[in-house]
């Protein structure tokens, strides 16, 4: 078995941060390279789960739309994939954008009706989506790269 992409990225980041960056005398260029190292490190940590994350998010939006919105199952049929080969990240992301557009419209509709409990369920979904995607918990890397 070949080394995985995340391992390759992790090692590349370590080489940049620990081996090459300290060799650069120019402060600006050193900081810039250090930032690239940190970005690759974040990518290494996130790449493995990127597809699963998008798939889960899409399913969560579909579930919410079916139970809390005006949209019915027929309208969401198009988001079901029949071919597992087509489930690349770009394919999932394309569906994700369409689902997010539907979600935005439905949240706006709930807001106009002032249904607080329903709005809170929507915010709960938005929070779980945001929590899964966010990289800000890796803020320590940002500090290192900018210090």
């Amino acid at each position, binding site marked *: 078995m070949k080394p995985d992409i995340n391992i390759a990225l992790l090692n590349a980041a370590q080489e940049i941060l620990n081996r090459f960056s300290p060799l650069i005398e*120019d*402060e*600006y260029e050193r*900081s*810039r390279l250090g*930032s*690239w190292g*940190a*970005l690759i490190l*974040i990518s290494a940590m996130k790449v493995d789960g990127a597809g699963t994350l998008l798939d889960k998010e899409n399913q969560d939006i579909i579930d919410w739309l079916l139970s809390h919105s005006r949209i019915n199952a027929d309208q969401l049929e198009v988001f079901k994939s029949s071919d597992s080969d087509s489930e690349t990240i770009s394919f999932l992301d394309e569906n994700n*954008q369409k689902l*997010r*557009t539907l*979600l*935005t419209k439905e*949240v*706006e509709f709930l*807001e106009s009706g002032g249904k*607080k409990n329903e*709005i*809170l369920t929507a*915010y709960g979904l*938005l*929070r779980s989506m*945001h929590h899964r*995607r*966010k*990289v*800000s918990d*890796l*803020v320590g890397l*940002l*500090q290192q*790269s*900018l*210090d």
Partner: protein
Amino acid sequence: MSQKLSKSFLSYYSNLSKKEFSLLSFERIFGGASRETYKIRLKDSLGSEERLILRLSQESSLIETEQRIEYLAYSAFQKSNVPVPILIDMSEDDSTFNVPFMLMRELNGEAANPFTPNSYSPYEQDIGIQFWSILGEIAKKRIDNEIFKAFAKDLDKPFWKTELDKWVKVIEEDSIGVEPILDAGIRYLYKYPPKESNNICMVHGDYRSGNFLYFKNKITGILDWEMAHLGDPLEDLGWALSPIWSWQDRDRPAYLIPRDEALDVWENSSAHKVDKKDLEWWELFAAIKGMAIWISAGNEFKSGKNIDPINLFSAWIPGDIHLEIILNTLESKI
């Protein structure tokens, strides 16, 4: 790039000063996203040293602002209670360095990373009082007539709508994905606007931790005025208070003094009374404006116009934090 630039700078500055100089150092400062900033040390024939800061407009920058706006904003606060660098020169044409530029004297002190807690330790109290007091000074400063007129051409009432429209337009133009949290935040701001302010003041536009210089317990300079404009004093206050600048210690905005104390200092210094409800609006606005800036950065990066890694960081990390702030605020309103 730096070598060619340093050579042309030496020639330009010798002509301007009518003196011969030799270059001691010419270094680009990392982190600026809207201007390329260089720290320059020169020596004249008698051995006297000069320390200068050169700011160049970027062909592709986060927020496209005129060099003249920044220069005029600095001009408005020369020799005032708001410490700013002494200006030397400015040009809006491309003839000297191929881009507009501004030149000023370097001030003593260092700028903190806004995401690092405890940067100001052990001087948080002293620096905190100065930080909020200087912001009050900006709010109450009477701006020179000529400078006021230059800024007033963009002045439109109500201020909140002018600013919100401006940043929503940036979001619409630069967005590379659908973001339901951001859309909900924007809807809220339009639906529940603040009262129109009777106070017109110079708004710094990016007054926060990291955009000032300090040396030990003293603030030595307020920097980065490129987003300055006329408007509501609560706009700067909302931006400076944003939890993003003290994410790991949210009760001490900008990692300085507690929020209530900060507001007291600002009220005393500015002679304005804070309307808490209006301030809440401006704090949510700050998160939307932040998102516009981070989205714009992400667009620059994705399109390849400017692949400085600071643009990717901006889209990833501050963008995440501001979205969370928007969602927290919206939930608290239900």
